[in-house]
């Protein structure tokens, strides 16, 4: 015993160093990935056939004004210098000015991002609440009609064009049945009624106690959120099913059954307990997927999120806004990926 604790004591400092090294490695890989991301957006911005000087000055600018602006914008410097200037700006949160809104892109993104966040969060929530039990059920009742239904539901989810399903959904539930609110975040009479605190209208209206606004917002978000939820459900239920199948065929499950435990305990305590960690990773990935996958959904539902922002900017050749939006979405994506990795390492001792 004493020898063992001595060894443990001797290990402690090195374990600390080890975890520091690991943290540094993770930070390093984030930095490299982000740098690469910025490089790609920079290249895209440079090969853009639109002249940034003309886009600022207009086409009838004089030769002198053109040259002066070119130098003021730093476009006369070598590309590599321009790249580092760009990185410096982005680190300070400066994505330049949007041509379309004539405001800093960073401010625009701060304004539109909560709308996307709200939509994606609700979508993931729906996907988890329905998808996880469906996946577990499909695995437990493997080969029965429940499994088949789960399979078909997922297959259709994988194969359906989301923008089309959104259109049909709007047509049926808004146009014909009138069960839900139409496009936009709230009805026209409720716009700007609540002060913006978080930027998420459900939270803001609840905080302010304005329940009529809240319910109106619910009626508007329910359709696009269900749509996104369906997509994450397809993915989450399939993954849950295959994780569960793997666990249910393990020997410890047989042991638990032989010991006479109830089926509920075997499935939910033993098997499900063991798939929580990979499941969290799957959910984080699907959350990241929804943050980007909402681009088309936002267009269909006129949802003022980052997806509509990027697309609108794109169609009017507002390159600063496009690149700024791309970098932010990429950043969130990378962070969620790393976050899910870390969770995995934190909860699963084997992965440490």
């Amino acid at each position, binding site marked *: 015993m004493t020898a063992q604790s001595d060894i443990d004591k001797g290990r402690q400092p090195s374990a600390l160093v080890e975890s520091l090294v690991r943290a540094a490695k993770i930070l390093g*890989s984030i930095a490299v990935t982000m740098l*690469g991301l910025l490089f790609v*957006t920079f290249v895209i911005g440079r090969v853009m056939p639109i002249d940034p000087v003309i886009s600022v000055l207009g086409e009838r600018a004089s030769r002198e004004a053109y040259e002066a602006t070119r130098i003021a914008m730093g476009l006369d410097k070598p590309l590599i210098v321009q790249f580092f200037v760009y990185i410096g700006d982005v680190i300070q949160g400066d994505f330049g000015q949007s041509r379309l809104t004539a405001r800093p892109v960073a401010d625009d993104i701060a304004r539109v991002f909560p709308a996307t966040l709200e939509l994606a969060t609700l979508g993931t929530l729906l996907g988890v609440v329905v998808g996880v039990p469906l996946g577990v059920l499909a695995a437990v009742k493997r080969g029965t009609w429940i499994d088949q239904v789960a399979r078909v539901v997922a*297959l259709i989810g994988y*194969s359906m064009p989301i923008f089309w399903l959104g*259109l049909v959904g709007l047509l049926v539930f808004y146009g014909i049945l009138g069960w839900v609110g139409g496009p936009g975040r709230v009805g026209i009479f409720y716009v700007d009624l609540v002060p913006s605190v978080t930027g998420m209208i459900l939270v803001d209206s609840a905080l302010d106690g304005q329940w009529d606004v809240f319910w109106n917002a619910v009626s508007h978000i329910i359709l696009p959120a269900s749509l996104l939820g369906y997509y994450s459900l397809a993915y989450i239920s399939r993954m849950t099913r295959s994780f569960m199948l793997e666990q249910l065929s393990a020997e410890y499950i047989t042991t638990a059954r032989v010991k006479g435990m109830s089926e509920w305990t075997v499935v939910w305590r033993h098997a499900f307990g063991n798939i929580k960690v990979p499941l969290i990773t799957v959910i984080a990935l699907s959350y990241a997927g929804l943050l980007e*996958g909402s681009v*088309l959904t936002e267009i269909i539902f006129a949802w003022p999120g980052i997806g509509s922002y990027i697309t609108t900017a794109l*169609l009017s050749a507002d390159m600063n806004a496009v690149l700024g939006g791309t970098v932010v979405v*990429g950043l969130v994506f990378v962070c969620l990926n790393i976050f899910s990795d870390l969770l995995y390492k934190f909860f699963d001792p084997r992965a440490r």
Partner: protein
Amino acid sequence: MTNPAASRNQMPESDKPSLRRWLLTDTPASRRQARLASLYQGWLTLKSNKLTMIGFGILVTLVLVAILAPWLAPHDPFAQDLGNRLKPLWTDGFLLGTDSLGRDILSRLIYGSRITLYIVILVALIAPVVGLFVGTVAGYVGGWADMILMRITDIFLAFPRLVLALAFVAALGAGIENAVLAIALTAWPPYARIARAETLTIRQSDYIHAVKLQGAGALRIITRHIWPLCISSLIVRVTLDMAGIILAAAGLGFLGLGAQPPSPEWGAMISEGRKFILDHWWIATMPGLAIFTVSLAFNLLGDGLRDVLDPKDSGE
């Protein structure tokens, strides 16, 4: 069976059952026979799965429709006929109705299948080849090359695909070729990952050492001995990814960044029909069903192929 040479010589004039026997023999006499036999067995497994065959059937139909489009289409897909605009389904002569310019929707769908196939084939040619190249080189050479190539792969993987494709199309200009290029550029990293993983396991195997002892160089080993073994898992992945690629292409078309009007691309057709969705629902609905059918077919076929070619990943 006892005399392999004889059974091989019989092959050409033998009728179907004995061809079948020749294919199912346990003792193949030649490399060609062994290869054909394994293909045939794969086909039998594939054939036993009803859903897979449905997917396969839909795709064969798609190819036929695309080839025979000029003969199948009842109307010119571009011919505008303002007198017959916005006709509903089952109208005489316009089975699926007409759009806002009086163009026959069925004919446009039929010609649109060519565009879908064009996108699918181009992406399927570009992305896996790039991925295979990057992955095998990284896996075989190792060291710095591996680190740099995999870093680049990670960077592309870290990007949200649709957003990256959007940015690419924005830079290159809207159009179907650029949409294909953008999708391919965002689609290759997973293939590189798969190819690298396969290469790492193959690299240390005995037969590679044997080939090395015979004096084969890296180029020969990669192209002749590693690539053929990576192909099957790539084919599965490509088939399963096709659905996503079709959806992405349709999404770009819908946003007006893919095929340009008056091209009968399905995503662009939905976008055109969107304005009339409340009163004339079929204009946007029919192309959506077409996209859904084709991507469902790819998913069904991909599932079946995975069971045949890559049993370890099937999760069953």
